[in-house]
């Protein structure tokens, strides 16, 4: 059943007695259908459970050949970039459908970090640096990791202690970024730092794209519970050039909020893939697992749980579609939509993941079945770019004025 899969929406606004008439078209373009089908087929061939386990267990924790193939054989890394940069001319919708497909195989590719976050920042600022780096992203030669989180800041993007001090034409970076996904693989780091101000002040926050091998960067690498590689990144008097600055000095917060919102929705799209698989895997297991002389899928208490899972998956898709289509609205509307989406999807990821394990019973808690690995990724998605609580709070701040 392809019932309410994400479709493209064209929104037409009219002036008139009705403030706003929305005409919806949830169909995909041919190009979008082709992207999904091509990617889905490629991942089915390359990303089965055993292959994924092998990649994770290998020295670098990934198979770099997959990334190359995504770039060069499939042209997938260019889907969301403009034709001027060598891409396919797509945008948020392409990112969403690619992330959803990656979620269906719990892929550990750095698409979110490189294309959605890195590419998103470059598209937003444009200019020479975008012209130089975007074609390299599309070609698969660049991997970007997003170094933004700090231990004290939690999900507050402005709470930054890492500093970038002006030094002649460039800057000197000092500080510590935590849990930087994909950093061990990265050619570039996208770094948030204070060029002024303090605490959680909006002013003084800046965004830089720097060479990941710059002198003075100390990394501690480790695997994550959901199969990626990440690092603690310490900047110890790292000299960076002036043109590493993306946007304006000290005025980077709106840009950072925008790309993190885009990434949040992309992660929600991934969650749609992850939870859809958790649900279908559970259904399949319940149909073939017999207890008390019948398939456990016949027990009403389990049927209702699986129906609830189904409803959560469907609503996640709906919210992700809604938020994807609102990413280019003015900041306040965009943020409210993204927070609504992430709050809902975080809860769904928890419910669907926990229900999948409970319905599987003991076998769900082992490393031997894929279902447990989907559950682990779903669990990490819950809090990625902000927990449900964080997003309810932001939603309330934006929509429930005193």
């Amino acid at each position, binding site marked *: 059943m392809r019932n309410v899969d994400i479709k493209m929406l064209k929104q037409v606004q009219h002036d008139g007695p009705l403030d706003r008439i929305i005409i919806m078209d949830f169909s995909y373009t041919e190009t979008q259908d082709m992207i999904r089908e091509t990617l889905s087929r490629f991942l089915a061939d390359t990303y089965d459970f055993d292959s994924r386990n092998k990649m994770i267990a290998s020295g670098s924790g990934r198979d770099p050949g997959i990334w190359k193939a995504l770039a060069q054989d499939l042209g997938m890394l260019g889907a969301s970039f403009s034709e001027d940069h060598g891409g396919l001319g797509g945008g948020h919708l392409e990112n969403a459908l690619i992330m959803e497909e990656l979620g269906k195989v719990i892929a550990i590719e750095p698409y979110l970090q490189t294309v959605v976050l890195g590419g998103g920042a470059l598209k937003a600022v444009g200019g020479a640096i975008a012209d130089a780096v975007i074609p390299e992203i599309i070609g698969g030669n660049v991997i970007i990791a997003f170094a933004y*989180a700090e*231990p*004290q*800041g*939690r*999900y*507050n993007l402005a*709470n930054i202690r890492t500093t970038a001090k002006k030094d002649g034409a460039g800057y000197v970076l000092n500080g510590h970024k*935590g*849990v930087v*996904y994909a950093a061990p693989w990265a050619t570039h780091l996208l770094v948030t730092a204070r060029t002024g101000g303090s*605490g*959680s002040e909006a002013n003084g926050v800046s965004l830089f794209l720097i060479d990941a091998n710059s002198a003075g960067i*100390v990394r*501690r*690498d*480790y*695997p*994550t*519970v*959901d199969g*990626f590689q*990440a690092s*603690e990144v*310490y900047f110890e008097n790292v000299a960076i050039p002036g043109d590493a600055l993306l946007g304006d000095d000290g005025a980077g917060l709106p840009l950072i909020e925008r790309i993190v919102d885009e990434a949040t929705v992309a992660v929600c799209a991934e969650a749609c893939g992850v939870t859809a698989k958790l649900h279908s895997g559970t259904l399949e297991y319940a149909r073939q697992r*017999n*207890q*008390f*002389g019948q398939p456990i899928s016949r*027990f009403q*208490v*389990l049927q209702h749980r699986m129906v609830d899972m189904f409803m959560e998956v469907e609503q996640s898709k709906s919210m992700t579609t809604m938020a994807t289509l609102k990413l280019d609205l003015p900041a306040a509307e965009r943020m409210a939509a993204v927070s609504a989406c992430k709050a809902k999807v975080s809860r769904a990821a*928890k419910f669907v993941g*926990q229900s999948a*394990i*409970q319905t599987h*019973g*003991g076998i*769900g*808690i*082992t*490393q*031997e079945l894929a279902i*447990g690995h989907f*559950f*682990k990724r779903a*669990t*990490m998605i819950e*809090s990625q770019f902000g*927990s449900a*609580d964080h997003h*309810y*709070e932001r939603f309330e701040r934006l929509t429930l004025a005193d």
Partner: protein
Amino acid sequence: MQLEFSPEEIAFQQEVRTFIAENYPKNLRSVQDEGHDLSKEDFLSWHRILAKKGWIAPAWPVEYGGTGWTATQRFIWSEELAAADCVGTMPFGLSMVGPVIYTFGTPEQKARFLPGILSGDDWWCQGYSEPGAGSDLASLRTKAVRDGDHYVVNGQKTWTTMAQHADWGFFLVRTDPDAKAQEGISFLLIDMKSPGVTVRPIITLGGEHEVNEVWLEDVRVPIENRVYEENKGWTCAKFLLAHERTGIAAVARSKRGVEKIKAIARTEQDGDRPLIANPFFKRKISELEIDLTALEFTELRSLAGEAAGKGPGPESSLLKIKGSEIQQRITELALEAVGHYGAPYFRGFGEGDNEHPIGPDYAHRAAPTYFNTRKTTIYGGSNEIQRNIIAKMVLGI
């Protein structure tokens, strides 16, 4: 009714608190604090100290090695153990097969097996679940066929906790293939060093090796190792499951868990405030604490009933359901509390240095523990099965 401890009970509390402080193994404390996996010897070091003191089996009748404590004293004891964050003693001998043996066993079986359970010399495991018999335990197919003065046992068990360390296992086996499901099952004690016993690890989601598959191929078991009558093993199994369920509420340990979360939430920053000042997080802690109080007083009422001579009955399913859910919520909150640092997988940390740590120590096990603790609503009779028990046995519907 009264809530206050008597002066004697307060003196007892002081006595056990002092004993724990003076005798809890220091190296075990550091193994726990540094978040290492516990070895067999780690578990046994504390067990042996308690055995020597005579406090290893407070719930047992005095004649078999119990302490003779009142229900209140036992409650105080478990509170103090949890408050001091002591490792638990393994339940398979002390809480499971021990009570079965002293209740249903022959004098010879009591003399032979109870001392090893108390001393810790014998490590026990539980051979119940099978790949095809989980919630529907009575559908088990491991069979034991009489051959002279032995049974020959063939089959496969699974989810056998800590079988990798076990000297002995208690197994449910089918001795009458033609009888109705529950009737035809016998309760056997099997030496895990017997030829034909193979233990294979199952690695669970947090990367830990706790559970195993146990394969039995033509394992010869002397008939005197059968507890209770042939084909009446289900009686032992039901008795044991009810016992397993009372301990499963884990109130004292959960209290300690809630305190740990509060400590983490006071340390963790949430932007410009400590996490404990986040109203959403605070509300979750208080909900948890209030639910835990409800569980605690439900358990106390149940214990009072037991003290008055009523054995643990089907209402212990309530303790299992609520206790297991609370244990899970504690791990959920702990994971939520550590924020970004839930993601690093501690088993993959290489050699580190203090200058560049990977998050706070308390974060290292947050996610693996959360994943692992999904088991509590599955094992010991899944919570779905527990609800069936309450519906049938308590509500009569």
